[in-house]
C-alpha cells in the first residue's frame, strides 16, 4: 500500500512543478469554455453555405474548433497544464456524446420505421397465405414466448442451484474451476451454442432436424452462466449472521438456504433472472439454425419448425418477396416489438430490485 501510494505523489510533485507552466497565475472565467464553443458554432454556421455542410459535419467542426479554441485560450492565460486538462475534458465529454449517437439514432430509426405497422393485425395474424400487404407476427411472438419460457424453465433451476453450490458448499479447486468456466461460458458466441444444439440433436435424430426444444437448449447454454453470475453476486450479499442465527436454532443447512438465504435475496434473484431473460430473448443466430422459420403458428416445441420474433425479423428483411416494402415494414415492426420487449424486461428488473428489496437495509 505505502509503496503504491508514494509513486504518484513523487512524480506528481516533481514533474509538473518544475515546468514553467505553473508560473502563470491568470484564470479564465467559468463561462469561457462555453463561450469558445458558442463562438465556434457561430463561425462554422457562417461558413455553412461555403462548404455545403450537413448537420453531422456542423457538429463535428464545431466541437473540433471549440476544443482547439479552449486549448489555445487556456494555454495563453493559465498555462500548459491547465490547457491539457481542459483538452482532455473536452475529449472525454465528446467521446460520451459520440457514444450516444448510435443509441439515439438507433432508437429513433426503429421507432419511426416500426410504428407504421404497429397495429392490431400485426399481433393477431400470422403469415399464412399472405403475399404482400398485411399479415403479422402472431406466430413469431407466440413462438418467442414459448421458447423463452422453456429456456427459463431449463436455465433457472440449473443456474440457481449452481450459484447456491458455489456460494454455500463449494470450496477449493472445484469452486475455482466452476467459477472460471462459468465466466468463460459467458463468452461463448451465440452461433456456437446453436451449432452445439444442432450437433446434439443431429447425432441422435439425424441431420436436417429443426425443433423448438433445440432452440431452448441452445439459449440455455447462453442463459445459464448469466443466471449463475448474477445469483452468485446476490447470494454473497446475504449477511452471515442470518445463516448463523438459523444454524443456532438447529435448522438444517438446506432448510436454512431455502427458508432464509433465498427469501432474503429474492429481489436480487428476480432482477438477475429478468435481465438474463432480456439477454436471450433477442438472440437470433442460435434460433436461426435450430428452429428455422415457418409461416404458420406452431406452439409445440417438440414438433418441427417454429417461428420466433428475431428470426422472423431477419427473414422479412432479407427475403422480402416481390414488392419488398410490406415485408420490410413488418421486419421493422418486429424489431420495434423486440426492443420494447427487451427494454420492458429491463425496466421490470429495476422495479423488482426496487420494490422487493429486503425491508431492513443494512
Amino acid at each position, binding site marked *: 500500500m505505502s509503496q503504491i501510494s508514494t509513486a504518484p505523489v513523487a512524480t506528481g510533485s516533481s514533474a509538473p512543478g518544475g515546468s514553467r507552466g505553473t508560473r502563470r497565475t491568470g484564470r479564465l472565467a467559468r463561462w469561457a469554455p462555453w463561450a469558445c464553443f458558442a463562438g465556434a458554432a457561430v463561425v462554422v454556421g457562417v461558413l455553412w453555405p461555403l462548404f455545403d455542410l450537413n448537420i453531422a459535419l456542423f457538429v463535428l467542426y464545431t466541437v473540433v474548433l471549440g476544443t482547439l479554441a479552449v486549448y489555445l485560450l487556456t494555454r495563453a492565460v493559465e498555462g500548459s497544464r491547465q490547457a491539457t486538462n481542459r483538452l482532455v475534458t473536452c475529449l472525454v465529454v465528446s467521446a460520451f456524446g459520440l457514444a450516444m449517437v448510435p443509441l439515439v439514432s438507433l432508437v429513433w430509426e426503429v421507432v419511426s420505421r416500426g410504428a407504421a405497422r404497429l397495429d392490431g393485425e400485426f399481433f393477431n395474424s400470422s403469415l399464412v397465405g399472405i403475399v404482400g400487404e398485411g399479415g403479422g407476427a402472431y406466430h413469431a411472438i407466440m413462438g418467442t414466448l414459448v421458447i423463452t419460457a422453456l429456456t427459463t424453465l431449463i436455465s433457472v433451476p440449473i443456474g440457481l442451484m*449452481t450459484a447456491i453450490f458455489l456460494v454455500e458448499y463449494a470450496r477449493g479447486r472445484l469452486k475455482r474451476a466452476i467459477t472460471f468456466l462459468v465466466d468463460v461460458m459467458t463468452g461463448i458466441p451465440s452461433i456456437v451454442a446453436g451449432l452445439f444444439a444442432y450437433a446434439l440433436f443431429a447425432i441422435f435424430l439425424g441431420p436436417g432436424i429443426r425443433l423448438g426444444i433445440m432452440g431452448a437448449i441452445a439459449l440455455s447454454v447462453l442463459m445459464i452462466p448469466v443466471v449463475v453470475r448474477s445469483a452468485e453476486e446476490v447470494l454473497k450479499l446475504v449477511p452471515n449472521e442470518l445463516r448463523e442465527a438459523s444454524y443456532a436454532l438447529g435448522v438444517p443447512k438446506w432448510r436454512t438456504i431455502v427458508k432464509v438465504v433465498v427469501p432474503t435475496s429474492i429481489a436480487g434473484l428476480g432482477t438477475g433472472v429478468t435481465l438474463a431473460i432480456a439477454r436471450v430473448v433477442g438472440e437470433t443466430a442460435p434460433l436461426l439454425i435450430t428452429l428455422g422459420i415457418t409461416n404458420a403458428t406452431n406452439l409445440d416445441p417438440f414438433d418441427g419448425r417454429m417461428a420466433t420474433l428475431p428470426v422472423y425479423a431477419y427473414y422479412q428483411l432479407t427475403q422480402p418477396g416481390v414488392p419488398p416494402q410490406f415485408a420490410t415494414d413488418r421486419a421493422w415492426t418486429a424489431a420495434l416489438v423486440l426492443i420494447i420487449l427487451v427494454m420492458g424486461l429491463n425496466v421490470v428488473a429495476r422495479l423488482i430490485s426496487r420494490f422487493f428489496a429486503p425491508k431492513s437495509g443494512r
Partner: protein
Amino acid sequence: MSSTRTTPPSPPGTGRSVRRPGDRVFAGTAKGAGILILVILAGVAAFLVVEAVPALTAPAEDIPGDRGLAGYVAPLVFGTLLAAVIALLVATPLAVAIALFIGYYAPRRLAQGLGYLVDLLAAIPSIVYGFWGIFWLAPKLVPFYEWLEDDLGFIPLFAGPASTTGRTMLTAGLVLAVMILPIVSAISREVFLQVPSLHREAALALGATRWEMIRMAVLPYGRSGVIGGSMLGLGRALGETMAVAIVLSVSGGITLNLISSGNPSTIAANIALEFPESSGIDINTLIASGLALFVITFVVNMVARAIVNRRADFSGAN
C-alpha cells in the same frame, strides 16, 4: 464464509455431525448442477468435434469452394479477426473515455443514470444493430468512404473502389465497435472505481489537475482492467453474428481493402448465412468452422478472464 460450515454443537455420542437426508439430497443436487456446467462446456466441445470430423476427413473437392477445409476457413478467420480488430481499435479508447467521463467528469447525481444509458447499448438485440447498420449507418458512411478513396487512396486499406452501398468491412467493424462499447466501458468503469481514493486525493492535494490525477493515479491502476475488458470485448466481437451477417457485403477472398464491396465474411456470419440452406457435408464444414470460432473465442476469453481476475484479487483493502 468459513463460519457457515461450523456445524451446530451436537450432543456427545452422535458422531462428528448430523447428516440429515434433506441436507444430503440438497447438497448433492447443488453439486450436480455445478458439475453439469462443466459437462455442458465439455459437451459443446465434444459434439462440435464429432460433427466436424466428416469435414476434417473429407477430400478437398467435397468442401465448398474446392480448396479444402483450410482454404475454406482461412478467409473466414481472416475476416473475423479483421472486423474484430477494427471494432477493438475504435471501441477501446472510446470506452475508456466514457468510463472516465462517468467516473470522474460527469456530475455526481447524473453519473449513475448516464452509466445506465451506456448499458442500454448492451441490451439492444444484435439483429436490431444489423438493421440500424444497413439502413442508417451504411448510407451515411458512403460520402466518407468516397472521401477516403479520393484523399487517402494511397493507403492500401482505403484503396477502393468505394462501395456505393456502404456495406463494407469498416462499417461492420464500426457496428461491432458500438456493440462491444458497453462491456469494455463497464469493466473499465469497475476497475477505475477501485482506485484507492487516497491515491487520487494525494495527487489532487499536491496540486495535480484532474487529468494529471487520472494519468498518475487512475490509469496505471486500471491498466490491466482495461486490457482485460477490451479482450472480453474482442471475444464478443469475434463471435457476433447477425449484425455482421446483415451489414457486410460478402464476396470471399482475403483483402485488406476496408471500403470496397468485396469483403471476406466472418465465421459466425457465414454460418448464419449458409446454414439454413445447407445439407450433408456442407453442414459439417460449417460446424468445423464453428469449432474454430469456439476455440478462438475460448482462448481469448480465458486470457481476458485471467487478467481481470488477477486484478480482482489485488483490489480492495490490500
